[in-house]
C-alpha cells in the first residue's frame, strides 16, 4: 500500500502564503510559485523555496522548518517621496499579513527574518523587497 503523505511545501507553506496574500490584496498583488521567473505586471510577488529540515521529535508527528524567499516587485516610475511611501506601505501590509498567519494554528509559526531593499538590475524602475521567511509547521 502506498504511503499516505501531505505535500508539505505546497499545501502547508506556499499555498497558505498565497491564499493569505490573495485574500488581503484581492488580485492587486498577484503571487506566483514558479521555477522560471518572468515579469508579470507592475506589482507582483514570487515565492522561491530555499530549504527545509526536520526537527527532532519523539512523537508521531513531523515538525519541519521551511526557509523561503518571497520577492515583491514594484514598478516606481515617479521616484518621489509619495511613490516611496506607497512602496513601503505595501511592504508593511505584507508583513502584517504574514504575521496574521500565526492565528491559523498553534502548530504554525511564521517569522520574517529579514527584508532587503534593492533596485532590480534587469528591469529599470522596479524596486524589489526580498523577504527571507521561516515557517515552522507540524504535520
Amino acid at each position, binding site marked *: 500500500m502506498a504511503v499516505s503523505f501531505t505535500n508539505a511545501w505546497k499545501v502547508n507553506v506556499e*499555498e497558505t502564503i498565497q491564499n493569505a496574500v490573495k485574500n488581503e490584496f484581492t488580485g492587486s498583488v498577484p503571487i506566483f510559485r514558479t521555477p522560471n521567473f518572468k515579469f508579470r505586471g507592475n506589482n507582483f510577488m514570487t515565492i522561491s523555496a530555499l530549504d527545509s529540515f526536520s526537527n527532532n521529535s519523539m512523537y508521531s508527528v513531523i515538525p519541519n522548518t521551511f526557509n523561503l524567499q518571497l520577492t515583491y516587485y514594484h514598478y516606481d516610475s515617479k521616484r*518621489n517621496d509619495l511613490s516611496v*511611501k506607497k512602496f*513601503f506601505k505595501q511592504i508593511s501590509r505584507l508583513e502584517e*499579513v504574514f504575521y*496574521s498567519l500565526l492565528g*491559523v494554528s498553534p502548530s504554525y509559526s511564521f517569522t520574517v527574518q*529579514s527584508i532587503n531593499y534593492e*533596485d532590480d538590475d534587469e528591469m529599470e524602475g522596479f524596486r524589489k523587497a526580498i523577504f527571507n521567511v521561516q515557517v515552522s509547521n507540524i504535520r
Partner: protein
Amino acid sequence: MAISYNNITYDKIMIPLRDKLRTEFKGALPIYFDSQFKDIGTKSLRIFPNSQSLQERRTKSYINLYDMEMTYYLRTNRDDEKALDQMYKDVTRIETILLENRNGGSIPYFYAGQPTIEHNVEETDLSNILVAKINVPVLYEEVHQTFGRFITSNDKFFVLSNGSFYIVEN
C-alpha cells in the same frame, strides 16, 4: 475585511529622521527618499533603508532593526581641502543631530547603536562630487492587533470577523 497596519518604515522611521534633519538644516540641505542619486542641487542628502531584520518576536509584537543609510552629496569643482572641510562639517552636523535624537519621543524608535560614517565614497557615474555615507541602525517595535483575525470553525475553514470565510486548502 482588510487588516489594519502601520506604514512602519516610512512613517515611523524615515519621516522622523528626515524631519529632525530638516528642522536643523532648514532649506540648506535638500533631503529626499530614494534608492538612487538625484541631481537636485549643490548639496543633498538621500535617505533609504538597506534592509530590516528581525531582532525579537514577542507574543503580540515584533522588534525589527532597520539599517538606514543616508548618503550625503556635495557637488564641487574644487579639488582641495576646502571642499573636503565642507563635507566633513555637514556630515559631523548630521551625526550630532542623530546622537542628540536617539529616541523618537512620541514614536517609539531608538537607535541600536552609534551612526557609522564613511567618507569619500566612490559612486559610479558621478563626477565632480564628494560622497559620504552615514549608516544608523534603528530599532522599532510593532504591536500586532491582528493575531486573532482568524477564528477556527473546523480544520479547514477560518471565519473572518465580517462572517466571510478564509479557506486554507488541505
